[in-house]
């Protein structure tokens, strides 16, 4: 349509003779006001949230917050009360433990660490490290905060070292007597042995005296007398003032 024919020009001319309507002023004002408002603000979103969609985001945010708070409160309420859990065990042991703590504190002051065995036994160069690697003490021990308890813990550590050393010496003597040197475990296993024993003793120390005694009685019943004697000695060292019930003593005497 680059070049118009005379007929087309005539038609166009006649068309332009028609009324030249213009939009009303109010329409102009409304459109120009809208254009100015838009220029002053950010571009409108491609999809304007309307109706129900307007509430989606605030509702979702509120729901997430409520859920988070509810879960947190629920977890807090469901968490077991440590005080209530340890109370019975602590109650049974408390009297004995206080008594023993005092004894151990005395022992710590009076008795220096025993010298290294004259039999050429080489103690572990880092006993403290071994202690640190032992299983953690039970919660009831950790919960107590009196100074006597700290002394108790230190005394128990010393006991563990002593008993460990004695047990190893005894074991070496037993093996020498039995002439089972050839059947000794590999060096790597020997190196692990003290650690295992320490762990076993630490495990026993976590038991209640009654449980421990019952375990010793079981060993007796199984014919593992040496082991039972060893543990009994350890028990007496650990609980010097504990009166062993006669019913248990009878079990020990039965061979």
């Amino acid at each position: 349509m680059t070049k118009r024919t005379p007929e087309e020009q005539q038609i166009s001319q006649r068309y332009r003779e028609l009324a030249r309507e213009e939009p009303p002023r109010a329409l102009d004002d409304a459109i120009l006001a809208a254009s100015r408002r838009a220029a002053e603000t950010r571009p409108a979103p491609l999809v304007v949230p309307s109706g129900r969609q307007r509430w989606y985001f605030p509702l979702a945010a509120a729901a997430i917050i409520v859920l988070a708070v509810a879960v947190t409160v629920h977890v807090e309420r469901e968490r077991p009360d440590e005080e209530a859990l340890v109370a019975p065990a602590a109650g049974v042991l408390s009297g004995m433990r206080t008594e023993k703590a005092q004894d151990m504190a005395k022992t710590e002051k009076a008795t220096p660490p025993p010298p290294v065995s004259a039999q050429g036994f080489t103690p572990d160069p880092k006993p403290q490290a071994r202690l640190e690697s032992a299983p953690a003490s039970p919660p009831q021990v950790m919960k107590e905060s009196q100074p006597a308890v700290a002394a108790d813990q230190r005394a128990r550590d010393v006991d563990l070292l002593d008993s460990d050393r004695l047990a190893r010496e005894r074991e070496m003597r037993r093996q020498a007597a039995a002439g089972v040197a050839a059947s000794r475990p590999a060096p790597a296993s020997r190196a692990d042995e003290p650690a295992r024993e320490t762990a076993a003793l630490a495990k026993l120390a976590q038991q209640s005296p009654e449980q421990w005694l019952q375990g010793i009685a079981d060993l007796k019943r199984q014919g593992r007398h040496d082991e039972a004697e060893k543990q009994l000695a350890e028990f007496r060292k650990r609980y010097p003032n504990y009166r062993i019930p006669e019913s248990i003593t009878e079990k020990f005497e039965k061979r």
Partner: protein
Amino acid sequence: MEAPDEALMLAYRRGDAGAFETLYRRHRGALYRFMLRAIKQRSSAEELFQEVWIRVIEARSRYAPQARFTTWLYTIAHNLLVDHWRKKGLALVSLDTQDVSVESANPARQAEGRESLARFLQALEALPAAQREAFLLHEEGGLTAAEIAAATGSNEEAAKSRLRYAMAKLKAALDD
């Protein structure tokens, strides 16, 4: 020298409200008449006219001068017209070859009837919608056949054909 439409639209996109006002004043009359004569109902025409400009405003951030601003403007107008006719149960294309009787137009104008201009207007209003739209896009928007095709979503040959039919009928009305 006046700034081209595309530059004004880009300026408006950057936040220059004055550029839009210039653009609006340049095209407001032609677009208004296009709408008014396309649907012949003033209230609807004004509503659609306003809607075209609102869409221009809303689309400013996406505007890219890939074609003439006028083509883009009348493309929006055409789409709104199609929606309007669809709502009214009319189809733009199906009216392409259907002649609407001149006698079915406004009787008051028929009474005035001998006036050449009145006949011309009646002939224009009697054109099939697609032909009338092609003629109005050509006269008011200044669009070429190719641009009419682009604005109406048809091919150039169809646009030329519609324009030719419209011109022939209007010429006949002038010769009466």
